[in-house]
């Protein structure tokens, strides 16, 4: 009986071209259920309506989509499956919808869909998806800003531990909110110019690194970022770790920062000053930025050699 069970759990099943073991199926079912049971105890903290239910469903879709991205980037079925499993129980993802009813997944999923479409070669659709996501994100933050019911914000950050936690978030708010957007635009323009000028070959690795870099960079300098501004980067860091396991600390650290920001927004306090998290984010930004530089140097020389 023992041997039968042992063999049974590791026996390979095949449906079409898809092969899996009983253990795979067991984890898939159990983790999916765990994701639901993880959300149930906190779901009553905010009003549960169709928007929240839809968001929870989309969080599962997002987990599948990210699994597909990892499969595309690594070719590893195990890592893809692991990505799905982790994302289903990812604390910031679960808390964002079920607990807090922010439901950022509605626009975040468009970023990842865009990224997936890019990897599959559908560049126009990818661009449209990212643009739609950006529009939805801006609308969501604007609507949330309105709900705060203030004439003019008193702080440059609304919960995300970014650059303004370091330099002080309450000085020149009405000027720095515009200036920071211009500086950010200048930085992105310079980045785009460097890439275009060096004729960098855009590999999947580089695309993933850039995706993560931008997901960290933009909320780091953009003004009025809410506590959930690291949602996209949380997931992107996990995908990056799946591609480069030596970077395991990136999703770990980002998740800690992100959930601490949630805690600060929801509970009104954190155990560490927010500025500590800002410095951690800066470290992540530098780390990923250095990875991008190394990769672009490699890809530029490959491109040069090919020519």
């Amino acid at each position: 009986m023992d041997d039968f069970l042992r063999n049974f759990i590791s026996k390979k099943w095949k449906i079409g071209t898809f092969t899996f073991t009983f253990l795979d199926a067991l984890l898939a079912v159990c983790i999916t259920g765990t994701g639901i049971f993880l959300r149930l105890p906190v779901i009553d903290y905010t009003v549960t309506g169709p928007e929240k239910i839809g968001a929870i469903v989309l969080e599962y879709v997002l987990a599948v989509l990210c699994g597909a991205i990892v499969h595309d980037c690594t070719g590893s079925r195990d890592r893809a499956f692991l990505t799905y499993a982790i994302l289903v129980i990812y604390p910031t993802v679960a808390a964002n919808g079920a607990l807090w009813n922010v439901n950022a997944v509605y626009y975040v999923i468009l970023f990842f869909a865009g990224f997936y479409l890019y990897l599959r070669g559908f560049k126009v659709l990818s661009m449209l998806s990212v643009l739609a996501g950006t529009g939805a994100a801006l609308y969501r933050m604007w609507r949330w800003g309105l709900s705060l019911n203030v004439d003019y914000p008193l702080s440059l950050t609304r919960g995300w531990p970014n650059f303004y936690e370091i330099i002080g978030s309450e000085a020149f708010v009405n000027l720095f909110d515009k200036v920071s957007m211009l500086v950010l635009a200048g930085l992105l323009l310079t980045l785009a110019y460097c890439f275009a000028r060096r004729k960098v070959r855009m590999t999947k690795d580089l695309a993933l690194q850039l995706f993560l870099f931008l997901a960290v960079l933009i909320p780091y300098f953009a003004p009025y970022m809410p506590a959930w501004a690291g949602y996209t980067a949380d997931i992107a860091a996990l995908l990056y770790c799946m591609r480069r396991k030596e970077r395991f600390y990136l999703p770990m650290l980002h998740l800690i920062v992100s959930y601490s920001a949630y805690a600060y927004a929801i509970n009104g306090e954190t155990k560490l000053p927010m500025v500590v998290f800002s410095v951690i984010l800066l470290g992540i930004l530098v780390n990923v930025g250095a990875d991008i530089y190394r990769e672009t140097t490699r890809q530029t020389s490959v491109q040069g050699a090919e020519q």
Partner: protein
Amino acid sequence: MKKTAEKTGVMKFDRMDYVYLAAITLIALAIRLILRVVTTDDWVMYWDPWISDLKEMGFSYLATDRYDYTPTFVYILWVISRLPINPMTAYKGLHIALDFVAAVIMGKIVWKVTGSRLKSITAYGLMLLVPTIWANSALWAQCDIIFMTFLLLCFYYFFEERPNLAMFFFGMAFVFKLQSLFIFPFLVILWVNKKVQLKHFLWIPVLYFLSIVPAWIAGRPLIDLINIYMAQGAQDVWSLSIKWANIYQIIGNQYFLLEYASSGTWLILGILMILMYAMARKRYRITNEFIVQMALFFAILTPYFLPHMHERYGCVADILAVIYAMMNVKKFYIPLAQLLVSFNCYMAYLSHRGASEPPIYYGVWAFVELGLLIAVGLDIWRFMKNPENLEGSEAVLRKEEA
């Protein structure tokens, strides 16, 4: 040490470059236009009353002792007082224009020392985005960009191997700000290594003297004018560090005010003497990168130990750190950390924190600055220890000794 190419030819741009340059210039201009409306304490307490007096008294204002900046700066204020536009707009407009001039010089320096068009153009863009640059001129209404522009010209002509012109621009920088002396020891090292002649140093007193002549003629006593930097130094002595992240933020900046003010000055003089002795004992191959390393090192070191340093006194190190990273991209963290320290000190003043600490304590920033000092110091040490960098005969001698 990486060998860097030298370009003397004219840089050619294509359409992509023009688009980038136009876009980044517009962005930089927009940043400054947004910030130009801020009226800071420095404007209210100094520049505005000085300009009002200049309007009222004309050039005879220069005979008074109501100003403690060098007369050259006051001549500029006199011109502004004559203009038929809002003084603050004229004042900030001039310094904003100089931001762009400095960015162009920065681009030319990077082109000269790296030979890379991409780096040169992005150096122009980054210089305009550096927060301590736009905050200094457009927001704060400060005038550091004037002497920094001259310092950049000084470096440019050193890289062009025209030391006479380089020292002329150093002299011009000194005419506007005493802080230009932060990097003076590196000029001595250049002199030891035959890159500058003693006569070139004459530009410093000559230009200074010429600059004070009009004020002297106007009626201010010569001794007053010669001692203007001394008088400046005697003000703002209420703390050993006036919001700059240096050693006094670690050991305490409110105790032994008088004692440490004097001892601290002697201490940094002693440190500089020891360093100059160590660096002058041998002749080195003076590369462009070594020049920037040395200047950056002294730009960080001097305000690190000098007492009464203000928030803005990292500005020379800020721009040198950018050039340094452009020459050696692996050192990208140096400008990143330097600018973070520097801008944090700016904001501590501009956001009217008073005596209260910024979100990250000054002591932490002071350790970061110390880390930078060590990092750049080690780079210099490695350069000096590399036998390939010793002047020809020394390298042979070393081999014989070995």
